[in-house]
């Protein structure tokens, strides 16, 4: 049984399709393991296995972040206001993956409405990091990341708005891909910030990420106007060196604020990259230091509008005993939303207010344009940009909950790519001791490329992954 759980998703799919492994047995093994979850990674686990799958993904079960709508299965986006909500339909990407042979294993914990970097903002309690249960798994897709790292799931779906796939992947020692904006349909994803949200895979290795991602993209979804036809299929990566590639290292994202242990692992990885034949040079993203400020105007602005539908009228939580409509709205949203969500709704409402729109939303949009131009300029000379994924390793539960700004800084290296809509992948590149001492924890290495460069990005990440030979099994015993 443990042997089954040690198979990568791609290896398990291959074994099932070859008839060497029974798909039902595989599903049951993971269902039992997810059902015994001690990390609070899962909010819901499937009761029964699906009928045998003939899809190309071999019936390898999929953990899905809570915010994806799944027909008849609780989809709560980590929020009290949607507690027990059962959607009448499934998200496009969930349907596509189920049809391709990746059935739903369970729904994973997350920060409420994907707002957070530690999964501590979940209304259903925090998820624990399988490397050290006193620490956070990152967020907002912390449940998905912890489940994959701890072998509670072969692979998982997450979403990334400003780093919510890449940062938890880094903190849990797994692979996370944030796709090009528009490559994956957002239909059925409970929205945080529409112009930034993207679904992506969280996997044990780069091959699994490519395999899963290949079935997430494809024909444009007519239900999502912002989705795009991906140019060509996603290939399974096979590259073994990095010859001929130029990697830019932006000074703005690799200096101040990065923990020494993380920086050391990052620098060592750059040397390894050079050893694999790539040219590694410094580059500049002059507007990147303003990315976080722009992000914390734009994302809350969109969120303040996206979350207006949670009003107690049609579904979800409704406060009882209100005497009139305004009181019902006020009490429902007061009781139903957590503190961070309310903070961002207020920020966003303010940023869009008449008289402040130009100074906040308008200016933030201009910064966003500048950041995209910065990347375009850099990609004239470089194939990819490399940064640490997160400025630090996993921090202790509660360490940053009282300081929202310290929490926001977790996304310092990931937000610029989100604003530019470009793809980025995080792979584990080593271990580092946290600043306060303690056992070593995973460090994430981020590679970002131009829009629709996923095949090249996955290829380079695969070559690097082989050279790094990161061993994530330490987390597997933590289920």
């Amino acid at each position, binding site marked *: 049984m443990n042997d089954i759980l040690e198979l990568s998703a791609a290896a398990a799919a291959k074994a099932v399709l070859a008839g060497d492994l029974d798909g039902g047995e595989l599903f049951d093994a993971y269902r039992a393991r997810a059902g015994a979850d001690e990390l609070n990674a899962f909010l819901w686990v499937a009761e029964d296995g699906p009928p045998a799958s003939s899809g190309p993904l071999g019936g390898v079960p999929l953990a899905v972040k809570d*915010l*994806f*709508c799944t027909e008849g299965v609780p*989809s709560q*986006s980590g929020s009290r206001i*949607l507690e027990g*909500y059962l*959607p*009448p*339909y499934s*998200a496009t990407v969930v349907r596509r993956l189920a049809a391709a042979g990746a059935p739903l294993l369970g729904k994973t914990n997350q920060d409420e409405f994907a707002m957070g970097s530690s999964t501590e903002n979940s209304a259903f309690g925090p998820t624990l990091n399988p490397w050290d249960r006193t620490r956070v798994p990152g967020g907002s897709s912390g449940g998905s990341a912890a489940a994959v790292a701890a072998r509670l799931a072969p692979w998982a779906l997450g979403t990334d708005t400003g780093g919510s796939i890449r940062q938890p992947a880094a903190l849990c020692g797994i692979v996370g891909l944030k796709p090009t904006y528009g490559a994956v349909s*957002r*239909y*059925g*994803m*409970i*929205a945080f*910030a*529409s*112009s930034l949200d993207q679904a992506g895979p969280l996997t044990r290795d780069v091959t699994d990420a490519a395999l899963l991602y290949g079935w997430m993209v494809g024909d444009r979804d*007519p*239900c*999502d*106007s*912002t989705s795009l036809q991906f140019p060509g299929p996603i290939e399974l990566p096979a590259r073994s060196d990095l010859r001929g590639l130029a990697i830019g290292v932006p000074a703005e994202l690799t200096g101040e604020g990065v923990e020494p242990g993380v920086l050391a692992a990052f620098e060592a990885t750059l040397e390894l990259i050079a050893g694999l034949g790539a040219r590694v040079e410094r580059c500049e993203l002059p507007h990147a230091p303003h990315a976080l400020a722009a992000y914390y105007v734009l994302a809350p*602005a*969109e969120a*303040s*509008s996206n*979350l*207006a*539908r*949670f*009003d107690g*009228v*049609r*579904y979800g939580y409704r406060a009882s005993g209100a005497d009139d*409509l305004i009181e019902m*709205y006020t009490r429902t949203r007061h009781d139903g939303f957590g503190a961070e969500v309310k903070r961002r709704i207020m920020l966003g*409402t303010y940023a*869009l*207010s*008449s008289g402040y*729109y130009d100074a906040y*939303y308008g200016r933030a949009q201009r910064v966003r344009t500048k950041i995209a131009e910065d990347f375009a300029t850099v990609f004239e000379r470089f194939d990819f940009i490399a940064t640490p994924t997160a400025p630090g390793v996993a921090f202790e539960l509660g360490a940053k909950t009282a300081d929202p700004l310290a929490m926001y800084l977790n996304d310092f290296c990931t937000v610029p790519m989100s604003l530019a809509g470009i793809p980025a992948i995080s792979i584990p590149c080593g271990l580092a001791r946290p600043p306060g001492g303690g056992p070593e924890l995973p460090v994430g290495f981020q590679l970002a490329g131009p829009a629709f460069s996923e095949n090249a990005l996955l290829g380079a990440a695969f070559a690097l992954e082989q050279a790094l030979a990161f061993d994530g099994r330490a987390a597997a015993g933590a289920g």
Partner: protein
Amino acid sequence: MQLATATKMFCGCRLMFGAPPNTLTCPVCLGLPGALPAVNARAIHFGLMIGLALGCELAPRSIFHRKNYFYPDLPKGYQISQYDEPLCRGGELAGVRIHRVHLEEDAAKLIHLGSSGRIHGSEHSVVDFNRGGTPLVEIVTEPDLHSPAQAREWLELLRATLRALGVSDVNMEEGSLRADANVSLRPAGSDRLGIKTELKNMNSFRYLERGVAAEIERQRGIIEAGDEVAAETLHFDPGSGEITSLRSKEEAQDYRYFPEPDLVPIATTAEMLSGARAAMPELPAARAERFERELGLGGERARQLGFRAELGDFFERALAAGDAEPVALANWVGGELVARTGDGDPAESEIEPAALAALVTLLANGRLSVTAAREVLDVLVAAGGDPEQIVAERGLGALDDTAGLAEIVAAVIAADPAAAEQVRSGNQKAIGALVGPIMRETRGRADGAEVTRLIRSALGLDGDAG
């Protein structure tokens, strides 16, 4: 104005009047978590046709915005509308400038239960989302309308234009066409408009005219008393004629407009434009102008038939079906026929256009009297048929037999010598006392002018008529 598309503005739900509540809904128009809008291409097509009809500048790129506010009939907490980059700008219809034309979605329908159906005093309210997401087009004019009557007439022309385009049912009673009137006064000779008020949701042409008239009087009273008009949104109650305030400008909401991130901009392609151009019918104003210029109709008759597409259609079909003289035919369509079919479409009565053409030709040829023709028209509208046959069956043909008619005239004169004497002595009115019995005797078939001529002739008054 609601567009007559088959499906809603941002989802595939059918649009239908009178379906059971909440049966025409989906995750998108219910605002369920995770659902996303997708623009109805037909609505854009209709929007472009409206822009062409009104002579607007069609934007090569336009975008949707979110208008944020909370209300139970608004499931997403925002309405998807257009703000500073609408589909069409500028334009003109009959001398009234168009400011802009934009697309948006309608709200759902709130139903207040437990009392009179009004919100005050109701026990609870329910929402029917069937209407929610209906495509709406908002057309905004510049302040170029100068009287309540002009406002009404212009709105009637606008409705006729939209109806001719086939883009909407434009039915004010059913709410598919609604009008808000902005009213402001200015002192004679000044070119500065005073503070404006807005009368919301007037649902008939008559109420619009009355409401605007009442608001003008209200503002005049305020100004003449030396006070200032308050910028307000107002409601006109057609029952009581009263105007009440819905909200003042200070209470106006901050809608926090921002570009809808779930939709990409509408890029109006050459194909979309040529598609809209190809779909353009002849518009009412142009049709009226053609009736006047090419067929010699009077201006008022031409506008009547031009602006009411169903009348214009019936008229043109009748014209094509026979050899009736256009002006006479137009008068019969716009006069006698409308008197029988009212606001309805004559094509939905029993009369065929060719039958009316034949009737008008019979009349022009003196084959029957006006009175008889009216009787034939009654039959045609009610039961259809062929005018010649109806004339024959009912014996309504004109008495072209002058000798026969002269005998009747002589007999009537002989029977009433007193009346005959009065006519002979110059009392023209007395001739009616002779005409009446003659028409009774001939059952209306005699031509009135011929009867008069025969009476005068019999009484020896020929030659000095007049």
